[in-house]
């Protein structure tokens, strides 16, 4: 059977499967490590807050964090890219660029693309924030997907990953030295 394949679509879901005898960390731990391995960039926000005439300027960390357990429901785990003030927890969706959600699938759900006894998971783009110039933090999204898929493939030579983008191209990541302002 031809498996569904959209190698450059960073929004399409990824299906990953490992054979039942594979000794590995599991889909959730792989997602945590994939998120933590994305380099932390910085971004400068400036603008005006409600009821204030003064402009503010703040440097935020662009990090990918994960949520597992009850907080991730109805999914098994979630990863999100957020522009976060250092040492300030619990900020809302406005500073998030995207979210990935991972769900363990019941055995046999993806047959015949996946053998019936394989452990299977789906990684979906659960939240996206579009602007006129596209999806912000798309490189972080592509890198997280790539690292998760790589961890799955490393679990076993028989592991399967297919669906949306999971390859990586170094050209997707460019660095600049000076601060670039993001106005709200």
């Amino acid at each position, binding site marked *: 059977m031809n498996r569904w394949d959209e190698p*450059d679509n960073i929004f399409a879901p990824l299906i990953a499967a490992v054979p039942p005898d594979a000794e590995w*960390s599991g889909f959730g731990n792989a997602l945590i*490590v994939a998120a933590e*391995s994305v380099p932390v960039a910085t971004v400068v926000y400036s603008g005006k807050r409600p009821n204030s005439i003064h402009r503010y300027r703040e440097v935020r960390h662009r990090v990918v964090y994960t949520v597992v357990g009850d907080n991730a429901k109805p999914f098994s785990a979630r990863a999100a890219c957020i522009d976060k003030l250092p040492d300030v927890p619990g900020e809302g*969706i406005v*500073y998030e660029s995207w979210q990935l959600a991972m769900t363990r699938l019941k055995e046999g759900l993806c047959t015949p693309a996946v053998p019936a006894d394989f452990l299977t998971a789906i990684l979906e783009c659960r*939240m996206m924030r579009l602007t006129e110039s596209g999806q912000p933090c798309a490189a972080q999204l592509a890198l997280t997907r790539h690292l998760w898929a790589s961890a799955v493939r490393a679990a076993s030579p028989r592991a399967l990953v297919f669906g949306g983008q999971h390859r990586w191209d170094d050209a997707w990541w460019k660095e600049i030295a000076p601060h670039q302002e993001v106005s709200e």
Partner: protein
Amino acid sequence: MAGADRGERAGQDFDTFLPGSARHGPPILAALPQGHLVPYRLPGGQLVGFVAKSATKKRLQPLQGPLNPALTGDGPWITNGGVPAGGLIRSAVIAVDLHGARSSSLRGRTSKIAGAFLGSASNLWVQMWQPHEWSFTLGVNNGGNAIAADWAVQLRLTDSTAQVSTTHYLTKDDVLVHGEQHDVLRNEILRALSLGKMEDPECETELAHASLGRRQEFARPARAPVTVDFALRTKLEPQSAWARLNLVGHRLLQRDERQGVWGLGLPAYDDTDRVSIHVGPDRLTGRAVIASEPTLARRAAEAGLLSFIARARFLLGREDPDLHYEGPDEWATGPVL
């Protein structure tokens, strides 16, 4: 009270000079017969008064359409319908043209001039709550950790229908703000789910290409190639230590009874960026090497090593509260958050 007076006066001053403002509305409407349904437009092209209000209410009514039978099925919904339906919904979202759309977090009575200068490029938040329940919000960050929404649309899918409803909306002069995008989004979603096919199957890939390769900024240059030696003192038996290390989540490249090697960062650089752990009595000895050429690979490997050490300490520490880390302090901080 004095503040309210000042605000009112300021508004009147602006209204005196700007056509299409609330100040001009009542006299025009008073001249229209009751129940007049032909939209009246000011020179600026805006609908005004109760006529506009009626038209706005009409465009905010929930809409329902059929769900293409190919998207439903007898089996579990997530694979039979959820994946293709998600693709259709995203393609409809991408069809919404956000170019030039600007939103403002200002609310209430504000001047045209202030509104024109303080607006920012609009954002469209797309969120999947369940495979059959989505929400779409157009607006901007209000600067206070919340969305200043122009409108929010909710999509619910049942076994045979798709329903879109507008849950929040903002009007200006009784006209829905960014109503064009609102209508396009709702209509495109219903059309795509009804037909079961995308207008432009390549739209997501094109959007991805346009979004990738943006410039990233960092607080400091990438670290130079480095070798890090560290150790974890533990009373755990080797078998127990291995059981915990198997959960670490990094790519396991090699393993025998005494040593394991994991890749750090990008898999393309596993030969140069890796960490090894030697399991000995009372002590796990680690050595990490980060020696790849590209700065991204070194940055990812550095983040990966911080993650590896933090996770190894966490996982082993759950079994051995007396676990002790020996090594450079800068690698003991865990991932940057």
